[in-house]
């Protein structure tokens, strides 16, 4: 009864000791999770999905580290460098540079004056007014600016050199319609998109578990009402309904307008809406399992021992529902990511400036002729992540399905 032995081992003749070992290993009982895991390992697509998801989870969690390592952030706008192609070096715009110098002069007026006089004395810059010497200097080519400042005697030399170096930024995926770094926006978009997807899947699994177990366990009137509601919601075309609900203004709802006080209300609103319409599949699944479990002997035994309904449902039934639930949640994450992207793409989901893959696509539409890469990259990421969740869910499904277990 073992999955660990590769299928070829049956046909090959082996020495008596090793075959003894193999038989001993085969006779060892395996727990359910071991069987599932060894089945899962066989499925290459599912493994690919799992690793991709782990990678993106690390990207999402490590966003601040990536930001620090690359030295660019997601929100700095640079209107002079919009729609730069991938792999481009960019100089900070004039106003950013001069602002820095202004701050420097305000902080160290004496030192700044000394530098100014030196700059003019050594004939590096020829400003109309002597106060402008530093401003002239900062707008020079960065190599030349560093060269000049090396020759000048000042305690703030290193600070100024660092400033100049920081004005150069490198954008692996180029810049977007406001000159922001696309890579960093994608990284923060990963946080938002994956976060929304996982959160929606978990919450809707919880709602589905609650509704499904109530309907399945109590049956009768409760079952009829809950399942009619589920069927009714399932029969609706999802996207038009989501669009209508997403378009409402939270300010006009008496109780929910509290949400608008905390910044990211568009994320909360979106999660709420998606949760409202994604629990039905889980509810049906759980109800089906509970209905068949209800007739089993161990439930009768628990009842005879005087267990409460809560104990029976939570302690005895839920462990038997977990496996199919896990599959449903995994597939649900992919679906939620798609719906989040779709709504954001229509301008009704996550609102800028918060980046999400969907609203990045929406913004990219503006200049699809000049900068097609802006539209392609976020979509590719959505495709990759959703495909990974689908592979993972499918692999899990095969692994836990007793009919497909290869023995």
């Amino acid at each position, binding site marked *: 009864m073992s999955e660990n032995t590769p299928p070829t081992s049956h046909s090959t003749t082996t020495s008596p000791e090793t075959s003894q070992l193999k038989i001993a290993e085969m006779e060892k009982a395996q727990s359910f999770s071991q069987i599932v895991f060894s089945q899962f390992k066989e499925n290459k*697509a599912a493994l690919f999905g799992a690793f991709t998801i782990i990678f993106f989870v690390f990207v999402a969690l490590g966003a601040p580290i990536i930001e620090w390592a690359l030295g660019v952030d997601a929100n700095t706008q640079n209107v002079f460098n919009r729609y730069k192609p991938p792999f481009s070096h960019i100089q900070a715009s004039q106003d950013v540079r001069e602002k820095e110098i202004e701050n420097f002069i305000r902080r160290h007026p004496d030192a700044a004056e000394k530098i100014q006089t030196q700059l003019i004395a050594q004939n590096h810059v020829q400003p109309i007014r002597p106060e402008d010497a530093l401003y002239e200097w900062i707008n020079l080519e960065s190599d030349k600016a560093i060269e000049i400042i090396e020759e000048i005697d000042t305690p703030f030399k290193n600070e100024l050199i660092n400033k100049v170096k920081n004005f150069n930024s490198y954008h692996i995926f180029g810049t977007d319609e406001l000159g922001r770094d696309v890579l960093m926006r994608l990284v923060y978009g990963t946080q938002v998109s994956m976060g929304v997807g996982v959160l929606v899947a978990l919450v809707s699994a919880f709602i589905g578990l609650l509704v499904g177990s109530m309907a399945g366990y109590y049956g009768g009137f409760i079952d009829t009402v809950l399942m*009619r509601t589920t069927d*009714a919601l399932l*029969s*609706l*075309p999802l*996207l*038009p*309904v989501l*669009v*209508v*609900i997403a*378009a*409402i*203004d939270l*300010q*006009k*709802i008496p109780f929910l307008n509290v949400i608008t006080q905390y910044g990211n209300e568009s994320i909360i609103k979106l999660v709420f809406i998606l949760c409202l319409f994604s629990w039905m599949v889980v509810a049906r699944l759980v109800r089906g399992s509970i209905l068949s479990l209800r007739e089993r002997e161990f439930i009768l035994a628990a009842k005879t021992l005087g267990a409460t309904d809560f104990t029976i449902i939570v302690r005895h039934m839920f462990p038997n529902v977990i496996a199919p639930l896990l599959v449903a949640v995994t597939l649900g994450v*992919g679906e939620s990511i*798609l719906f989040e*992207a*779709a709504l954001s*793409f*229509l*301008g009704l989901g996550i609102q800028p400036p918060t980046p999400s893959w969907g609203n990045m*696509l929406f913004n*990219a*539409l503006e200049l*699809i*002729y000049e900068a*097609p890469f802006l*539209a*392609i990259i*976020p*979509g590719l990421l*959505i*495709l990759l992540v*959703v*495909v990974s*969740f*689908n*592979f993972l869910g*499918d692999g899990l499904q095969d692994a836990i399905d007793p009919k497909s277990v290869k023995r």
Partner: protein
Amino acid sequence: MTTYIFRRIIQTVLLLIVLSYVCFNLMTLMPGDPIELMISSNPKITTEDVARLREFYGLDQPTYVRYKNWISTLLEGDLGYSRTYRIPVAEMIGPALKYTFILSMCSLILSLAIAIPLGIYCALRPNSKFDYIVNLLSFAGISAPSFWLGIVLIIVFSVKLGWLPAGGYQTTGLVYDNIFSEILDKAKYLILPVVSLSIQSIGRFSRFARSAMMEAMRNDYIRTARAKGLSENIVIWNHGFRNALIPLITIVTLSLSSVFSGALITETLFAYPGAGRLIYTSIISNDFNVAMVSFIISISMVLVMSLIADLLYGVADPRISYE
């Protein structure tokens, strides 16, 4: 059977009433009050005028009264006017439903024509290289966001190659000589939206066809048929495929139910004047009457179609009983 149909009709009507009431309430919660919009275009308006306007349009009454008024005029056949375009809603929704129907039907037929042979071929050669590749591509098709696919198609075929138009439904200002040239011109605009819609359903249908056929070929009567010495073609088509058809009909009828609801995103992306785009644009432009009517009509179409689908399913598989 009759009681089943009766029960389903009652359920559908109830659902529609509840949904339209909820939707009516939601519309009042959307940004942009109709009176405020009128005020903004007229700076000379006084507070008395505002009150009079509110009374004239019945906006001073509570929502349920307004809902009752609205639904009674709707049932009389008066769908009201669009505020943005100043034309009756009926004139907008009719063509929109027609265009959506054409688009969805083309996509449904195309995806079935590709997916079913593909799925059956894979089911007959399970775990072959071809099967593996088709499976991978199906997953990619299911997972690809349709709007992104549309964008990529536009980039490739309209921007780079310039073969096909990026959006619309016919060449504006073109006078057609005959019906043939009209169809040809409109078909050109249909290709990209149909393809971007179909890729997703091809993935879903081919996986479904494959599993249905696999399930059918696993039955004992297939072994019996083979043991009798029937030719493989007869075994596959007469014994296997006919039984695989039953679950396939389910999914086809289920997809039929959405032919009128429209593909909201694809239509919006390709500026195709269908029902989905009508719902979206009217909501975005605060055209509440159009939004409500088009939403309710397309949803009731979906519900009616799914009722028909359920009944068709019973015809296809006599083992299904309606209690």
